[in-house]
């Protein structure tokens, strides 16, 4: 078995992974750094982010205001030391990206422009029209090309982490084009594999977002933190789940029920004003807006279409000129996928799974409890997002914590020796597993799509916007059975060349592990906080649950939940107040 060696291996080539790789190349130019991704880096899901990236830059704003908005937005589940580091380093990271060529939208005098965003009390969201993630990703990717020291493994798929002597020493991965299965050893590994929205049926997330890194870390013994906190974005297009950016509301869009009424005023989110008001109404936080939709539906005040209930997002009053300048992608997406022109018609929208607040537990340097293993971006949970992430914090997060993880992993790697002796044997075992259990196996009775569809059903029924104990308990059992059944999947495709059925089977197994942690963490959190709403425990319970959940994989494959205190520095738990 061939084996490649590098010093720092970054898994995932989205915003966090590319920023981490540059950080390694800049701080430790003599280290060999590699970016391995199952897709070409510019395909990564960062590309789909639309609205913007938050960082304090304008007079009248302050780091403390950004921190407070983030912490209250997260319903006090954020680690405040992490938030303080985040808001402090955010402006520098954003400026660095400006220097690297990111085409930020500008004010007439040439300064970077900012826009309002949900849950933010001051305008601080930098944007590149409504394709911010796309431009950030391409800027980062193109910038990495100038570093000859950054090696890439494009379209390689990681199947396990190599761990020995208590530290992570690399991965086993499949090169998709050839099917060869190799060990890639590293002195430090950084997981930047994004979230896991695809465990749900209706999501803004791309096909590639299967929680790969989360499951890999979890199987290697690292805990997943706060997995019960799943963000529903209030404005997705029915059927496709395509995101209509929060920027549409930030620029002045209204959410209307079937009577044309701005229903958010009934949910303690403020009074309707013709112009957008910060931290109010349509610029409230995503969890509250998605919950309001469900209540509105229960009252029979939503509309009904072929793909379920929906409300209207109305941006017609913004005018064609502003829409084309600041929201061109919204118009493009509506025209193509709904067949309506938002300049003249209202956009049908409904809440849609968008983002995982939870993820691989890390400290503020991106280090997991497993030495040599780091994580950043949506795959990780530092946590700055707490129980509900504010829109436009995640694009900034990938920069700040991507850079931090890169630096920390590089420093760690610089101190390590080569791989330990048993690593090669472990890699061989893994290759044998893949061949026997998947590539050569015949006669299995399950299809990937069937098991996946049932997982989707379980997740939607039990782990949606409102949850109950009995439904979660049932879901936990069903997921366990699905996981057993998934062992009996066999493939139509036994080819070694670009076998996407093989990767789909592995992705399904990752998603089932991750789904179980979401359900178990949600079951054991007997309170309601942020995006986690239990109808059987409707109140926030700081006494019992102002603490992070940590899901560990037990011997039998079930998640075991432990808890970790939340770090509070300067903002004691308080009430979340919007619109007043």
């Amino acid at each position, binding site marked *: 078995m061939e084996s490649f060696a590098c010093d720092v291996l970054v898994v995932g080539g989205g915003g966090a992974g590319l920023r981490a790789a540059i950080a390694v190349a800049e701080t430790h130019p003599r280290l060999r750094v590699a970016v391995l991704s199952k897709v070409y880096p510019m395909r990564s899901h960062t590309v789909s982010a639309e609205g913007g990236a938050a960082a304090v830059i304008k007079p009248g704003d302050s780091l403390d205001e950004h921190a407070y908005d983030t912490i209250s937005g997260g319903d006090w589940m954020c680690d405040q030391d992490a938030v303080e580091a985040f808001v402090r380093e955010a402006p520098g990271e954003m400026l660095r990206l400006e220097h690297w*060529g990111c085409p930020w939208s*500008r004010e007439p005098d040439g300064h*970077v422009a900012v826009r309002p965003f949900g849950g933010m009390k001051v305008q601080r969201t930098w944007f590149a029209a409504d394709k911010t993630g796309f431009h950030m990703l391409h800027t980062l990717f*193109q910038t990495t090309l100038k570093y000859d020291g950054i090696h890439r493994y*494009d379209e390689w798929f990681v199947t396990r982490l190599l761990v020995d002597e208590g530290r992570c020493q690399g991965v086993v991965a499949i090169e998709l084009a050839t099917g060869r299965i190799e060990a890639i050893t590293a002195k430090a590994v950084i997981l930047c594999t994004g979230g896991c929205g695809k465990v749900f049926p209706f999501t803004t997330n791309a096909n590639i977002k299967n929680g790969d890194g989360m499951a890999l870390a979890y199987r290697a013994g690292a805990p997943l933190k706060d997995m019960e906190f799943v963000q529903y974005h209030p404005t997705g297009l029915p059927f496709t789940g395509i995101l209509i950016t929060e920027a549409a509301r930030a620029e002045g869009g209204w959410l209307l029920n079937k009577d044309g009424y701005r229903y958010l005023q009934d949910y303690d989110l403020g009074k309707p004003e013709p112009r957008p008001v910060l931290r109010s109404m349509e610029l409230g936080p995503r969890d509250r807006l998605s919950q309001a939709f469900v209540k509105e539906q229960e009252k029979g005040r939503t509309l009904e279409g072929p793909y379920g209930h929906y409300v209207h997002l109305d941006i017609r009053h913004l005018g064609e000129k502003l829409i084309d300048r600041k929201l061109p992608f919204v118009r493009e997406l509506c025209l193509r996928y709904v067949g309506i022109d938002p300049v003249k018609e209202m956009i049908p929208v409904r809440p849609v799974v968008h983002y995982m607040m939870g993820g691989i537990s890390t400290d503020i340097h991106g280090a997991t409890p497993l030495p040599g293993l780091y994580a950043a971006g949506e795959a990780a949970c530092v946590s700055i997002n707490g129980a509900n992430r504010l829109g436009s914090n995640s694009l900034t997060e990938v920069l700040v914590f991507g850079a931090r993880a890169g630096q920390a992993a590089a420093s760690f790697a610089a101190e390590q020796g080569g791989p330990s002796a048993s690593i090669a044997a472990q890699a061989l075992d893994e290759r044998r597993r893949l061949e026997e259990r998947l590539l050569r196996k015949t006669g299995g009775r399950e299809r990937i799509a069937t098991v996946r569809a049932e997982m989707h059903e379980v997740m939607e029924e039990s782990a949606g916007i409102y949850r109950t104990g009995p439904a979660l308990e049932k879901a936990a059992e069903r997921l366990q059975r699905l996981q057993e059944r998934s062992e009996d999947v066999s493939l*139509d495709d036994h080819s070694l*060349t670009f076998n996407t*059925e093989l990767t789909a089977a592995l992705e399904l197994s990752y998603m089932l592990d991750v789904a179980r942690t979401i359900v178990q963490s949600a079951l054991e959190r007997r309170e309601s906080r942020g995006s986690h709403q239990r109808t059987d425990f409707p109140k926030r319970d700081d006494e019992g649950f102002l603490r992070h959940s940590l899901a560990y994989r037990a011997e039998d494959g079930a998640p075991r939940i432990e808890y970790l205190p939340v770090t509070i520095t300067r903002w004691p738990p308080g009430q979340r107040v919007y619109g007043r």
Partner: protein
Amino acid sequence: MPTTVALAVARYRPEAESEPTFQTYEVPFRKDWVVLDALNHIKDNLDGSLSFRWSCRMGVCGSCGMKVNGTPKLTCAAFLADYPSGPVRVEPLDYFPIIRDLVVDLTDFMHKLKKVKPWIIRKEDKPTAEGEYLQTPDQLDAYKQFSMCINCMLCYSACPIFGLEPSFVGPAAIALAQRYNNDSRDQGARERLEILSMKDGIWECTFVGECTKVCPKHVDPAGAIQQYKLAGAVHWVKSLLLPWGAR
């Protein structure tokens, strides 16, 4: 409205076949389905061995470019409703080596991308503590269009020059070079011009303009190449008149 439609899909399994063949599948005809949805229906329900790339399903990741009834398209943006009579012919993009089924090899493009130096080049960078480089909305507009490329490869598949001469740098890479040349923060135009004036650079292009026609993001690579040629010609004349290297 028909209830099903036939998809004739190009198959190529290098371990078993010496050249591509077509396989036909009957899929539900749904007006809100795109060709990619039909491919996923096949993969999930009919034949798990069909290989293709896809990810965002919203026209921005650039993964799912294929030929649909002979035209390069993003399959996530090509609606079945536009091909009601069927069969819908789905093939890999032209002019690239085929790895498997609908998956083509992008290795060559990735080298070309790097070759045009698509990053900000400056004699000196200022520290971030000194703030941003000012750039007015007009200066942004000077390159914005060329920055919209999603690297979907449709333009290469439509470019007859690239078809004849695979070493041609090609539309997307040239547009990207021009994106940086036109950026007021960049000082690397000359370096890039030297690369693109070499054989296989801009002079190969004969202005067929197919690249611009198929671009799903309205990047207008043909326009970028035209701008480049003008700059190249001016540079060449200047180098004759002012041989000591003034710009």
